């Protein structure tokens, strides 16, 4: 194991430095994540938004070193001063679940179908916190109650299939929170849920994040979820972060045309029926055949010659806002064209 670097209290909890993920496929190398730099501080929520194939899930897996076996990771993932890319698998195992916890889109990914929900939480507590069996079970009941599941004692003795979708996600959240993680990564946590249940789960996650002063990364394809529930937001396209800013700045003063187009494409509740939507033409690029230049260029309304030949770097607009575009939208332009 590498010697631990001293942890500076002012530094962010998590810092990604030039993180790339390459996947060998039958059609050639696929660069799923391309030189991502990011940081998240304790007590903050970062939203990562992107369409399918943009690399947002692969990026979240890269943070916890949970990539597919064939994937190649480069760059550094600094968590609490430690470079996770250099940790042994045993040290990583102790870290995951304890300091970094996950909530996935499908709660059955993290729930064991043949164990009662109470047993699963108790098992985590015994493994990571060394609680003895009875104390662990008592704590499991408290956790199940704290995530808003009625009749917690009875519920702890039931199996996941006896829970509804929303209740399963609550149970998965209870397991994720059981060891008081410093970082919670929620990957599309409400995508499979109905709108009324989605509101409940987002509310629960926000409440727990504030209460515990955790850092949270909320990964979603839904800009509306990012808008209401995050401090900062990063937009991914074709494996890269193309814009990152405090959430309000991103929605009101975006500089990257893709961000603008994505927000404009959402149907608006205050538009009258049959208002044509501002669709983005074309398709996302094929990740096994990266284009020279900006990946969004073929679909961009503001494209110029330079964009097709040279990849724009992610540059800071100010200390908290960065974007990757040669011809950004003027900073005074409002969200909806």
């Amino acid at each position, binding site marked *: 194991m590498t010697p631990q670097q001293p942890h500076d209290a002012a530094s962010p909890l998590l810092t990604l430095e030039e993180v790339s993920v390459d996947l060998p496929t039958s059609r050639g190398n696929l660069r799923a994540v391309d030189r991502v730099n990011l940081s998240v501080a304790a007590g903050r929520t970062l939203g990562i938004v992107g369409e399918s194939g943009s690399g947002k899930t692969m990026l979240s897996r890269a943070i916890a070193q949970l990539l597919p076996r064939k994937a190649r990771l480069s760059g550094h993932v600094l968590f609490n001063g430690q470079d996770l890319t250099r940790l042994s698998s045993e040290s990583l195992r102790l870290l995951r679940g304890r300091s970094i916890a996950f909530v996935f889109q499908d709660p059955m990914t993290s729930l064991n179908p043949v164990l009662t929900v109470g047993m699963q939480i108790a098992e985590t507590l015994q493994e990571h916190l060394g609680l003895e069996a009875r104390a662990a079970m008592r704590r499991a009941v408290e956790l199940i109650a704290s995530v808003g599941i009625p009749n917690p004692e009875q519920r702890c003795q039931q199996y996941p299939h006896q829970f509804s*979708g929303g209740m399963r996600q609550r149970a998965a959240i209870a397991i994720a929170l059981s060891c008081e993680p410093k970082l919670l990564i929620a990957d599309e946590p409400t995508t499979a849920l*109905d*709108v009324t249940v989605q509101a409940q789960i987002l509310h629960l996650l926000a409440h727990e994040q504030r209460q515990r002063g955790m850092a949270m990364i909320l990964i979603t394809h839904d800009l*509306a979820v990012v*808008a*209401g529930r995050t401090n900062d937001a990063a937009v991914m396209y074709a494996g890269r972060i193309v814009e990152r800013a405090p959430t309000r700045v991103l929605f009101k003063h975006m500089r990257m045309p893709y961000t603008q187009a994505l927000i404009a494409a959402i149907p608006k*509740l205050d538009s009258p*029926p049959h208002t*044509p939507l501002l*669709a983005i033409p074309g398709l996302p690029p094929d990740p096994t055949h990266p284009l020279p230049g900006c990946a969004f260029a073929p679909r961009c309304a503001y494209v110029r010659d330079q964009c097709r030949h040279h990849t724009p770097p992610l540059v800071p607009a100010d200390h908290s806002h960065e974007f990757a575009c040669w011809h950004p939208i003027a900073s005074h332009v409002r969200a909806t064209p």
Partner: protein
Amino acid sequence: MTSRGSQAEAHGPSHPLLRVENLVVEYASSTQTVRAVSDVSLAIARGETFSLVGESGCGKSTLARAIMQLTKATSGRVLFDSLDLTALNASALRRVRQRLQIIFQDPIASLNPRRRIADIVAEPLLIAGVRDRASRESRTRTLLQAVGLDPNLAASRFPNELSGGQCQRVCIARALVVNPELLVCDEPVSSLDVSIRAQIINLLESMKAAYRLTLLFIAHDLAVVKAVSDRVAVMYLGKLCEVAPTEQLFRSPAHPYTALLLDAIPRPDPDAAVPATIPVGEPPSPIAPPSGCRFRTRCPRAQTLCAAQIPPLREIAPRQFAACHFPLAGTT
């Protein structure tokens, strides 16, 4: 006609293209019966886009399938241009099917992976008895072009060579190739990314105008529903709780469930307030729905009457119908 049948006329147009009367769909297992659609009546005018919204398990897809005769109704009638589809035999049904088509949520799964796009789109023409190969081919090319695919590139491809959005375009072309009057769209954009979703919604709107279609649109995303609909029906546990013109329903919902749904939608605006009231609970199991009003177990306005009596769908405001003993409209 029963008195409840005349109620169906009351909340719809007088000469509808499609009329559903007291439709019931039950699924039976060896031990229990689930009433997925429970006594639903509605009517859709020619040229109208009528949307059904509701959460998973509310019966909206079952209702669509029962209208299309893909699922057999337990009782009730489906009148398409005055023809009772539930009473037709197989060959009569096949003839009328050309006039009503359906597209589904998962466009890739809806296409046979072993057939070329041109053959997939041309198949309804074969079923409709168009014998002449040249006219099938020319009609297929016209439709591929109309949905925004280049016939020269797309025709010989297989579905796995196309993206999800392109497959949905193929599904739309296949549905429209026989010139239907009614197009049922069951969650047509739910599996698509935001940037592609807008393309497909715009395409459906332009196809509706070009082919003078009537649309029955099923979705759980209220913002999408607002964008395409003339009238909206909200379903909960197999029953309609509200039917109203789109603007009216979104501006002043009458049923507390409609209000709850509207409140729960996350807004793509960081300045929009996060909803102060968080909806409670989840829809109960349709195997044992609550007595009286099915929404009462989650309703902030529920009173003892709601457990005792099923509220009928009644007119609360002009053209706005709600099944609620204590509706919201008019009280605020």
